[in-house]
């Protein structure tokens, strides 16, 4: 059997048994349940109604929670396995290095994406049963955005795991990465930079490079592409790229970033000491 498939399957099975996965699934399932309980499907705010309102809120919460979850669990398990001697033993078996690295990444992607998507899908099914309208084009777009976001942070997590030699360093690196990206969202540090009249190119460059920013903007631009909601730099980028252009960018860029990060991670993994 193909070693890549075997490694991915092994990683999926290992993750499904772990406590973090149970906690992770409960968090995302719980968010959707709470949103239903608070009657978000019934409310009408800023033009969002029915399930769309719930999905928009859910996706905003995902921006905050999903990346840090992916980063911390990925670096903990990959760097932790290496530190505990799992790599020493498993890589003494004739598994090609590409199969080990990318198999782990694919397996982990399945595990981190499915609960997030599953919670959203359950919400859609529940809404249909209750006779609440479901905007399927929005559902598909959000699914695609979640794929892109999960892949981006998984790639960054794999890179950090390769660079850091201990789980503690890897975990600190992952947390700092998330914090920096979060702080450089349009409405936080970028807003401050604009107020301080720093060069526009720098501000827009940072906003373009931040996968959290592209995800957040793409998630809400369908409804209300106003500067007060999107933030000034996103507004400028949206103005330059147009709606379709921005959506294409918001889907393609995180996937490219994740693949590039993981690719660098794989290159370093291959060129360094394995255990």
């Amino acid at each position, binding site marked *: 059997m193909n070693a890549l498939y075997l490694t991915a399957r*092994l990683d999926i099975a290992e993750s499904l048994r772990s406590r973090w996965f149970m906690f992770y699934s409960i968090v995302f399932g719980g968010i959707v349940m709470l949103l239903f309980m608070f009657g978000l499907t019934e409310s009408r705010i800023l033009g969002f109604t029915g399930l769309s309102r719930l999905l928009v809120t859910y996706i905003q919460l995902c921006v905050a929670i999903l990346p840090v979850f992916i980063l911390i669990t990925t670096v903990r398990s990959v760097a932790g396995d290496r530190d505990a001697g799992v790599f020493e*033993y498993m890589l003494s078996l004739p598994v090609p290095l590409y199969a080990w690295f990318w198999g782990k990444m694919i397996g982990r992607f399945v595990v981190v994406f499915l609960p997030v998507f599953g919670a959203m899908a359950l919400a859609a099914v529940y809404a249909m049963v209750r006779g609440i309208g479901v905007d399927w084009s929005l559902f598909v777009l959000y699914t695609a955005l979640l794929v892109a976001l999960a892949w981006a942070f998984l790639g960054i997590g794999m890179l950090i795991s390769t660079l850091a030699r201990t789980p503690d360093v890897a975990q600190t690196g992952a947390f700092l990465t998330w914090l920096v990206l979060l702080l450089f969202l349009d409405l936080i540090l970028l807003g401050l930079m604009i107020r301080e009249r720093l060069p526009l190119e720098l501000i827009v460059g940072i906003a373009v490079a931040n996968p959290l920013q592209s995800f957040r903007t793409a998630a809400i631009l369908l409804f209300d592409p106003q500067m007060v909601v999107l933030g000034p730099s996103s507004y400028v980028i949206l103005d330059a790229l147009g709606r379709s252009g921005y959506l294409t960018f918001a889907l393609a860029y995180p996937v490219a970033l994740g693949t590039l990060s993981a690719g660098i991670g794989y290159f370093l993994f291959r060129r360094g000491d394995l255990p």
Partner: protein
Amino acid sequence: MIVFENVSKTFKRHRVLDGVSLSIDKGERIALVGSNGAGKTTLIRCLLGEYLHEGKVTVNGVPPRGNRKTVLSHVGFVPQIPPPLKMPVGELVNFSAAVCGSDPERIITMVRELGLDWDMVRSRPFVKLSGGMKQKMLIGIALGRDSDLLIMDEPAANLDPEARHIFFHLLHERKDNAVMLITSHRLDEVAALVNRVVEMDQGKVALDDRVADDVEMTARLDCVVRLTRAEPAFARAMGDWHFSAEEGGQAWRGVVNGPDRLRFLGVLARYAGLVAGIEMK
């Protein structure tokens, strides 16, 4: 079969291996001994292609790092510290067999031979097994396929006497067609298993010597130890070897595996003042 040519490895300015050169042929069973930090594990990791290093390592003419599948298909590896794998034992066996292109049944047969109740352990997480069970599983995975390069780090340390005997027997079956590299802190643990001793010290080969041994790896020696008087501490030590007392504890009778006799004599040496006579045949 295996050639180390001027192999060196440095970690953050600390030279762990310093110009190691060794040539190992088929049929050689090598005890790689040395104190902690002597470089044994690093040398093994270079051989497994897990560490980058200076110099050259080749197995059958090819470097392991660039030819992982070719080289590692022939390697059976038992690490000193079992990895903390959370996966069930059955899954580990299936994965190992699949990537090695082997049949899981061969591993299961081997594990059963070593005295492990397969039906009991197959669904248990590997990490939850006892030290001895883990060791048997790792030995089973290493020997349950066509491996002719056996790399074992203190492989028999956690095995009971019966499992040790079976393990020695399994090694004996392969002794002419395989290379065995067995590491240990103590020579007496592995001396009788090997026909060559390589001692490492501060990253260098300090001693490389051949060993002549008339006792077969599979031999079992009937043994009687006579004491000048009964002694509770000695009784406890003999209990570990499954010996039974005679003459009110002044004589002890049991069976010692051939390769274990040096280790057994080491235990007796601690009670040299008490021992009146030893018979081993």
